[in-house]
């Protein structure tokens, strides 16, 4: 049994000691090596030597997605770039993405604790694991990929950009036993199986491991009814790490947080004070083993609760509930995340001012689709100036693809035809029942 496996069943006292040691050495490093944290701690008059327990972490300021966006690309790294061996990126709220750097040790740790989640969900060396997240700049597919390889499973990189038919063929012919993707993507694969009249009994599939977007027990019941799987939930930090933060064990009553690598807090997002024990609040994470891109008190925008109740599985790590809601209007799209504010920034940039718009999400042939409806306004060509409009449409589509790495269909609509919505200019048809 190696050290990391041992940590999963450490007594709470030993675990807190380990967390405190790692927290203190992380704080000493970020204060010495990352200008943002040095300034932020000094501005809040925090002396890191006063942080003598994991509770004392509350004295430190928060880190927000805006802070990370401003550090573009490498300002928040705690080591020189030559020590970084992997770079991933996630959408920031505004123009610039958030860039994540991993040292060799970071990759090794990430692999280990992601492997740990997969093992807790029952993945072994005998499994054939089909990973249907996007293999691109985002970290999701790679985190699971490394973890599954570490266990010794046979790993199939089967990017979510492939068609549903192709995914199903792979699943059938390659004898996939475990599927790793977003829950919605799995539901669409289930629909494809039904359309192609592939009976689930002809599949070797038995485990589903899902992440990348919030989902509920209803989706779990539906997935387990339509696919021959036990569905497991995982939780990651797509903005700062990727998968591997927490996951369900076989008990499937809450996600064990890898507390030897992360300190989890739950706060009231209005008062920023700790939420009462067991009550839902915004999740705040601190990484305590990362060398390249350490993060102190990151506000996730995810609302969930945390329970310290012992789990029948024997692991002593606290369990978080699934994400109950989100504090922002993040769009989960093909395993990546996008903010409406990013699309607003593009519309404003190309058109000079922000027109009324609506984002319509749907799915077609197992793939997420995005349509951006834009009202034709005064400073735009009129609807009958076809060539100019077509030109503008192409410019918008290109810009969206360049910035967000997403193919969107741009549709111009009559002035005042869109409902004026102050918020939530997003229509998500993906969750509606299919006809």
């Amino acid at each position, binding site marked *: 049994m190696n050290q990391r496996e041992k940590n999963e069943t450490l007594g709470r006292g*030993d675990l807190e000691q380990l967390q405190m040691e790692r927290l*203190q*050495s992380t704080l*000493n490093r970020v204060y010495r090596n990352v200008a943002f944290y040095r300034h932020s701690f000094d501005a809040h008059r925090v002396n890191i030597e006063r942080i003598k327990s994991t509770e004392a972490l509350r004295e430190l300021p928060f880190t927000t997605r805006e802070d990370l966006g401003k550090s573009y690309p490498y300002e928040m790294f705690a080591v*020189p770039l*030559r020590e970084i061996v992997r770079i991933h990126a996630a959408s920031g709220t505004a123009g610039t993405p958030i860039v994540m750097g991993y040292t060799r*040790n970071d990759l090794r740790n990430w692999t280990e604790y992601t492997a740990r989640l997969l093992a807790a969900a029952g993945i072994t060396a005998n499994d054939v694991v089909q990973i249907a997240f996007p293999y691109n700049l985002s970290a999701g597919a790679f985190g699971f990929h490394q973890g599954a390889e570490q266990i010794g499973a046979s790993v199939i990189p089967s990017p979510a950009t492939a068609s549903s038919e192709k995914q199903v063929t792979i699943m059938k012919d390659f004898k996939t036993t475990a599927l790793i993707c977003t829950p919605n993507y799995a539901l669409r694969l289930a629909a494809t199986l039904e359309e192609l009249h592939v009976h689930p009994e002809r599949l070797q599939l038995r485990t589903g491991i899902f992440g990348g977007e919030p989902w509920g027990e209803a989706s779990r019941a539906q997935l387990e009814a339509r696919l021959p799987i036990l569905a497991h939930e995982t939780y990651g930090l797509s903005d700062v790490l990727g998968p591997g933060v927490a996951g369900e064990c076989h008990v499937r009553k809450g996600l064990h947080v890898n507390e030897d690598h992360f300190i989890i807090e739950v706060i009231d997002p209005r008062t920023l004070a700790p939420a009462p024990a067991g009550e839902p609040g915004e999740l705040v994470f601190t990484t305590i083993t990362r060398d390249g891109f350490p993060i102190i008190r990151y506000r996730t925008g995810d609302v969930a609760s945390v329970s310290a109740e012992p789990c029948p599985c024997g692991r002593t790590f606290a369990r978080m509930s699934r994400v109950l809601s989100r504090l922002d209007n993040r769009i989960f799209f093909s395993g990546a995340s996008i903010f409406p504010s990013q699309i607003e920034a593009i519309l404003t940039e190309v058109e000079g001012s922000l027109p009324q718009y609506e984002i319509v999400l749907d799915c077609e042939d197992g793939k997420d689709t995005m349509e951006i409806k834009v009202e034709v306004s005064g400073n735009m060509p009129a609807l009958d100036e076809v060539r100019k409009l077509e030109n503008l449409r192409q410019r918008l589509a290109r810009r969206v693809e360049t910035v967000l790495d997403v193919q969107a269909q741009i549709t111009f609509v009559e002035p005042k035809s869109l409902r004026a919505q102050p918020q939530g200019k997003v229509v998500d048809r993906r969750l509606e029942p299919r006809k």
Partner: protein
Amino acid sequence: MLRIANLEAGYGSLRVIKGVSLHVSPGEVVAIIGPNGAGKSTLLATIAGLIKPWTGEISLQGRRVEQAPPEQIVALGCSLVPQGRQVFGPLTVRENLLLGGYVRRRERTAEQTLDGIYRLFGVLRERQRQLAATLSGGEQQMLAIGRALMARPRLLMMDEPSLGIAPRVVQTIFRTITELRDAGMTILLIEQNARSALRIADRGYVLETGQIVCEGSARELLDNRDVQRAYLGKDYRTIDE
């Protein structure tokens, strides 16, 4: 085995240890590496009870000992091999060893323990009647380790065991530490020779100006570029060599 939380200690008004937390689990070899003046020896001396800490907690097998005198800490199973050997020159090898067993004098097990130490260090048996002052540096280091083992510790703390010793003898010392480890001894080791220390250790901490700036498995620290640059020397070799 050993757990330290937020330890501060120093000399006079000089604060040397600035809030250190660390732990050593049973059966582990833990190395503390760091530059000269980082506070490594002060840390061990504080654990051994030779220096009283300013604040913070030290627990040995669950018992708080930060206020305990050194002899009580030895009796609780924690022995220190001090830097620079500090053997008693005018006494024989055997006398030095018997002094190390003083806290166990009522248990009448000295001869047996002595025999075990002679098996570990054959040269000490050969020279048992010789004055300690006449031994070579390496032999004196073996004597210092043997003397600490006479108290039959559960946790052995070693302060720079390779300091000022011929390179060939250093190998012998490290081999001995490995043998002790394999026999189940828990060891907390301070070393300038960071690479050798990390090769035999399970975990390590990097101490700089009285603070822990890095912790992890020995493998992680060997792979850490900061550690490589600062402590493993320019011509470090990777551990996959």
